[in-house]
């Protein structure tokens, strides 16, 4: 029982981290209809920037305070993400107004390649630590209820809180503000949005910037757990089942989807894995998402797919 709970918690926390990455996908998709393949690369790029700046800043400025250094590094990394958002709009999206989904998807792929190259050129290909002072050692709860207690990572707990905060903020933004509404309009029809005076350029910079910051937050949390390296981009693949399960267009869906996938993944690996040789969690997550899709083709909370004649 204790172990089951532990696995469950582990799954929930892992799921929360996926959610953070998934959130970036959802934001951009919801607000511009672009399936942003580059989200993984953005997480990596942001995390790399953060890791290296937090290393360089004390060096440049002769700072002692770790906290100050991290804050400045975060600001600089955020600035990088803003520049990126601006460049993406200027150089890519602007020229692809009103094109089909696959074309845009492909363009974000180009961006992925570019970021992979650029990130490693600027920041290097090594493994870099991000140390924002997250506690690494496990916390044992209920030691007297269960033998050995239930182990929880403090790091994960913090990540969960951050993710939950971010999500609530973003949901509010989408539902309550007129910009939020405009974003959804753009996703439906670029041209019509243009025709009534929604400035696509600004909208896209905003969205990519917000997605960039989300990527940065995700990157910092993942990075401080795992260290920052090229492979971080592959967490994007872990986030994909999350978004289709939750629905491509739903911010809360990203969270719920993340939790379901996280738990499903860990429980399956721990309880079913040993019977079939292990290593099943990744496909299990996808199959789980697929099963949900068979019942709700738009994901749990996604907007209904409209086909009408």
């Amino acid at each position, binding site marked *: 029982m204790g172990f089951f709970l532990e696995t469950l918690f582990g799954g929930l926390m892992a799921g929360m981290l996926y959610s953070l990455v998934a959130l970036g996908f959802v934001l951009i998709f919801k607000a511009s209809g672009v399936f942003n393949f580059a989200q993984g690369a953005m997480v990596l790029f942001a995390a790399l920037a953060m890791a290296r700046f937090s290393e360089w800043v004390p060096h440049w400025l002769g700072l002692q305070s770790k906290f100050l250094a991290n804050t400045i590094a975060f600001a600089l990394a955020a600035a990088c993400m803003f520049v990126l958002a601006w460049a993406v709009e200027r150089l890519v999206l602007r020229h692809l107004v009103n094109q089909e989904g696959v074309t845009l998807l492909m*363009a974000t792929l180009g961006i992925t390649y*570019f970021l992979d190259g650029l990130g490693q050129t600027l920041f290097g290909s090594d493994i870099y630590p991000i140390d924002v002072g997250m506690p690494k050692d496990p916390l044992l709860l209920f030691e007297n209820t269960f033998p050995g207690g239930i182990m929880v990572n403090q790091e994960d707990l913090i990540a969960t809180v951050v993710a939950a905060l971010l999500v609530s903020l973003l949901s509010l933004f989408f539902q309550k503000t007129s910009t939020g509404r405009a974003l959804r309009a753009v996703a439906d029809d670029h041209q019509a949005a243009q025709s009534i005076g929604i400035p696509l350029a600004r909208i896209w910079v905003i969205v990519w910037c917000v997605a960039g910051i989300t990527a940065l937050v995700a990157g910092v949390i993942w990075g401080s757990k795992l260290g920052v390296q090229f492979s971080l981009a592959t967490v994007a693949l872990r986030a994909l089942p999350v978004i289709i399960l939750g629905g*491509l267009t739903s911010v809360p869906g990203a969270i719920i989807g993340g939790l379901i996938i996280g738990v499903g993944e860990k429980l399956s690996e721990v309880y079913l894995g040993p019977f079939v*040789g292990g*290593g099943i969690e990744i496909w299990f997550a*996808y199959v789980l998402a697929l099963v949900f899709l068979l019942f709700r*083709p738009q994901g749990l909370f996604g907007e209904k797919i409209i086909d009408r004649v």
Partner: protein
Amino acid sequence: MFYRENGQFKTSYQADQQIFPVAQDRWAIVALLAFAFVGVPLLADEYLLRAILIPFLILALAALGVNILVGYCGQISMGSGAFMAVGAYMAYNCFVRIDGMPLLVALLAGGFFATLVGMVFGVPSLRVKGLYLAVATLAAQFFCDWAFLRIPWFTDNSPSGSVSVANLQVFGWPIATPLQKYLFCLALLALFALLAKNLVRGAIGREWMAIRDMDVAAAVIGIRPMYAKLSAFAVSSFIIGVAGALWAFVHLGSWEPAAFSVERSFQLLFMVIIGGLGSVMGSFFGAAFIVVLPIFLSRFLPVLGALFGAEVSTALLSHTESMVFGVLIVWFLIVEPHGLAKLWSIGRQKMRLWPFPH
């Protein structure tokens, strides 16, 4: 001026329904084929054959298969790598488990099993659409990755999970030297391209495209979505499966599941999008772009660097390559979102009007 079809009148629908209705095109294609079968063997060195042409041919074949599903039937799939893997491993099993199994039959058997798997994973497409389906097909990818790594039967109990084949021959001719391999792949590709072209310009092709463009209207004119989608999955995964078997048998010789990882799936998808969705020719352009360009860049950039007197390190080189590649993808999309094939046809249209601007 020279590229005009005026004066070429068709007197039968048969003539008008040819693959290349314009005479100049027909000649060009004959010349191209002749060059590919005769000229290339005379001119190409081993490196060109082994490192560029053979991979190009095989991936073009796979891209052709992907294009049928994605470009013609509109079902975005990110699981093509898995179907390649099924083709490769099942062909391998047929080849090594059954004595005296002819290579060609083994390859086709690989394709056959890929068809089965493709159809199974195609079933969700009846309900799930668009990007949701795309992500769902990744389930196929990861499941197959896992199965070939974990289930020893598929790898003939090889402890490392890596398998290999040797002594390939077709009708008694060995397929050993690069040239033989090249010709073998070329012949298969030409054959499959012809068959695929026939399909896509025939009734079934129209069904696929109808489903892609407007599925409700398609149903109303009597097209069964299930039949159309599943047949697209079947045909496409058959071709991809054969390509996978070729990739394993002819190109790699020895392989592990990583050869058909999710990156391969993405790569194939990029090929068809860059090349042009819904165009047989586009598959070739796309494959050429994705296979040849990085190789070209990796050879060309150092030369360029040297020109400016800068010694480019391997890492910087490879990062630059990746950046340039990314930029080129975006650039091509901006110039022509419908892919290289569309660019090509616009070029032809311009040629037709030349020297008048419009």
